[in-house]
């Protein structure tokens, strides 16, 4: 078990290293650095000013060396100006963190995640704040999505080919076939517009006080989450993920329901409810469990669209902002977070497997 965990962590580090190098390479292409200089020093500065900005801010060193700086294996750049004042990567980072001591190396290994050029704040602060916001969103998505998906899947799968199965399957396929950017816009038009959809009707009947039923923008959820401002983004993500999990659950459930031991149970007169809940459910949940865990990284993907659509500043929104503004260190940190999330959920799914199915051994 311990060896398994160690191996997994090793894989995680290696993946993170490879991925961050790729991200670092792509964000440090000369054109990208020029974008960065222009977003930082003025969008209409000249080429000479770009070159001097890059030089003065340590971007002129070779790419591999700077990747080493970021990792913390190469000493950070320093530069003394005409008056003899020394600045450099580590000076700035230490100043931001409020530390008097300036280390020679200041990268990931020393615990420095760097500064976000877009938000002008330490990357670690930005990521923690934004991950917290996405955490809330994800939590509500899982709370809504998983029970709904399992109920739909089990209901559909317990009597294959029945009318319930057909209608629930149609619903599941439709919801999973609709991408977030379609369903989100559709939900806003249906529920959060004062000119089209349901809100004008409800408002003219006097059923709602304001002009709209739900809020089509989740910015106020930053301060306080309410049903009215959070329902639409949560539903948009949940609907997409739900259909998929429901389909897997259904497939797994129908398979279990054809097993010999289920027939035996029926023959000896166990009630249908009992068969489903006692005998079939646990075996049928093994496949969906892996899928749910796999779904979490997928959800992180989906939140980019949904958070931008509903202007909810979470992890996905941060990723979008960082990519658009070529915020190198923020993008690197975001990819590390993504790798950790993917591999961590895989780890949980492997361990959970053992619990659900004692025949499987890890080692």
């Amino acid at each position, binding site marked *: 078990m311990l060896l398994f965990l160690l191996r997994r962590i090793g894989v995680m580090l290696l993946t993170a290293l490879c991925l961050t190098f790729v991200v670092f390479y792509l964000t440090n292409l000369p054109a990208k650095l020029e974008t960065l200089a222009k977003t930082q*020093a*003025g969008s*209409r500065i*000249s080429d000479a000013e770009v070159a001097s900005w890059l030089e003065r801010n340590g971007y002129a060193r070779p790419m591999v060396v700077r990747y080493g700086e970021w990792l913390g294996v190469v000493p950070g750049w320093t530069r003394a100006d005409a008056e003899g004042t020394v600045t450099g990567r580590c000076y700035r980072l230490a100043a931001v963190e409020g530390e008097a001591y300036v280390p020679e190396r200041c990268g990931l290994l020393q615990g420095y995640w760097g500064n976000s050029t877009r938000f002008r704040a330490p990357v670690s602060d930005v990521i923690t704040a934004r991950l917290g916001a996405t955490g809330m969103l994800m939590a509500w998505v899982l709370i809504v999505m998983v029970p709904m998906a399992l109920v739909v899947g089990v209901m559909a799968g317990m009597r294959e080919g029945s009318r319930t199965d057909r209608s629930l399957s149609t619903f599941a396929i439709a919801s999973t076939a609709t991408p977030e950017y379609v369903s989100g816009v559709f939900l806003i038009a249906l529920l*959060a*517009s004062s000119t089209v959809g349901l809100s004008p009707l409800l408002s003219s009947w006097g059923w709602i006080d304001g002009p709209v039923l739900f*809020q*089509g923008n989740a910015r106020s959820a*930053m301060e306080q989450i309410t049903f009215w401002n959070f329902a639409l983004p949560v539903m948009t993500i949940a609907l997409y993920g739900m259909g998929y999990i429901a389909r897997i659950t259904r497939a797994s459930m129908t398979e279990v329901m054809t097993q010999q031991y289920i027939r035996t149970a029926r023959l000896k007169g166990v009630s249908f409810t009992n068969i489903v809940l006692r005998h079939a459910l646990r075996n049928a949940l093994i496949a969906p469990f892996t899928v749910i865990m796999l779904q979490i990284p997928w959800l992180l993907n989906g939140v980019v669209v949904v958070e931008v659509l509903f*202007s909810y500043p979470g992890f996905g929104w941060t990723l979008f902002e960082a990519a658009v503004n070529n915020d190198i260190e923020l993008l690197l940190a975001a990819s590390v977070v993504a790798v950790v999330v993917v591999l961590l959920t895989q780890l949980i799914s492997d361990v959970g497997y053992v619990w659900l199915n004692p025949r499987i051994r890890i080692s």
Partner: protein
Amino acid sequence: MTHKKRKATELHPAAQLYARECHEGKLSRREFLTRATALGVTAPAAYGLLGLAAPAARADTPQMGGSLRMQMDIKAQRDPRTWDWSELANVCRGWLEYLVSYERDGSIQPVLLESWEANEDATVFTLNVRPGVTWNNGDPFTSADVAHNIERWCDASVEGNSMAGRMSSISEDGALREGAIEIVDDLTLRLHLANPDIAIIANMSDYPAAVVHPSFTGDDPVANPIGTGPYRPVSHDTGIGAVIERNPDHTWWNEGNGAWLDRIEFVDLGTDPSAWVAAAEGGEIELTYQTTGDFVDIFAAIGMPESEAITAATLAVRFNQEQEPYTNRNVRRALQMAVDNAVVLELGYDGRGTEAENHHVCPLHPEYAELPPLTVDPAAAREMIEAEGLGDHEFELISIDDNWQAATCDTVAAQIRAAGINIRRTILPGATFWNDWLNYPFSSTEWNMRPLGVQVLNLAYRSGEAWNEAGFANEEFDRLLDQANGIADADERREVMAQLQQIMQDEGVLIQPYWRSLYRNLRPNVHGAEMHPTFEVRYHHYWKS
């Protein structure tokens, strides 16, 4: 000193001349106000010259209190003189004030200056600092502070300091020229210009000209909010929003004439206007920063009528004359001739503006000269292109992915195509577009307005200027422009201006289809928040009922 000092009460002779022209109908009232106030005539006096009473600023009595939520991009702050977006300035307007301000009616009003005077040939300007102004840290505001700021503006060694170009008549080798500023006493200073420059006061109303405290050194005016205004920042999160509240520890010099709101919240909702609509429907914003295209009507439909500002802002679909095939004047002229600006205005910008004449001087500008109408002749355009041997050449028109800018360029390209000339459209995302905006062979750039016509010509079309994206270099043009910069008299300057405009047209510098009207949508209970032609958000004059 060569100039004759005039008393503050005495009117500039040119102002009286302008007033006469205005009476004779040679000058519109707006033009008159811009010009007269630029010469140091106060707005009430200027209205007086016309025999009019200055309009009452407000019909209703403003109410104190309340908080306002406004949609606006919140970008990472930096040193004010390097600001490249009006939004950066707007956040700080509550505490960083300006020496003078440009008003919706085209006049220039004193803010931290009480008045100013120019000598006869606009080479010496006397600035009188407003007495009784204090910084919010308690320091008095003096002429030394003004001198300090002007010196900062002249420092061209700071990357992206766009004020340096605006202060060229008092700077030398990228810094303030020795002896250009003379501090007379605590409340008076004099600027000695190397050459006549009528735009220098108007330039001080531009958004990067925010007046900072002498202790300001960093590049974040939010972290270090020492200013003269009545507000102070509470929070500022790039990409998310900013909160500003009335400063209870500071007595504002203009107490009783503003600072009605207790609190202003700027909400950054990204660039997609449909997200703004959704937020407005949910009651999360009460006014937009700027609304464009169809969204003006969409917002109006949900109970947020629009406020319009007529401006000299435009989209310059310019050729870069340093790049093939646009080095050839005939090619540029031919492409211009294929495009009917009226159609571009109608299809590209929903007719929300006025037609322009390819020379980047607006009828709003005081010195605008009327030229004969442009000829549109697609058949001749095609012939000219063929005569240059470019019949099979595929031209490429590049634009940013912004809604109205892309639509305008699509219309321009469609008309060129209709003339039988091959053209391809390329749309670049904002993140990459600005990387090379100066060097695209044929592309479009958004230009905000400047109060005087010479100002944009100085910035964008003088040889070798940093923002000369057309690569335009014409000795005669530069010479005439220098001449125009020093002519205080209206008709005289218009004569030179007519030549400048003619050169612009003859050389085929750009296709400049229209002058934009700008819009903002706001709830009916928000007052004093009309759209401003230069995008200013003076929230210290907004109030709610």
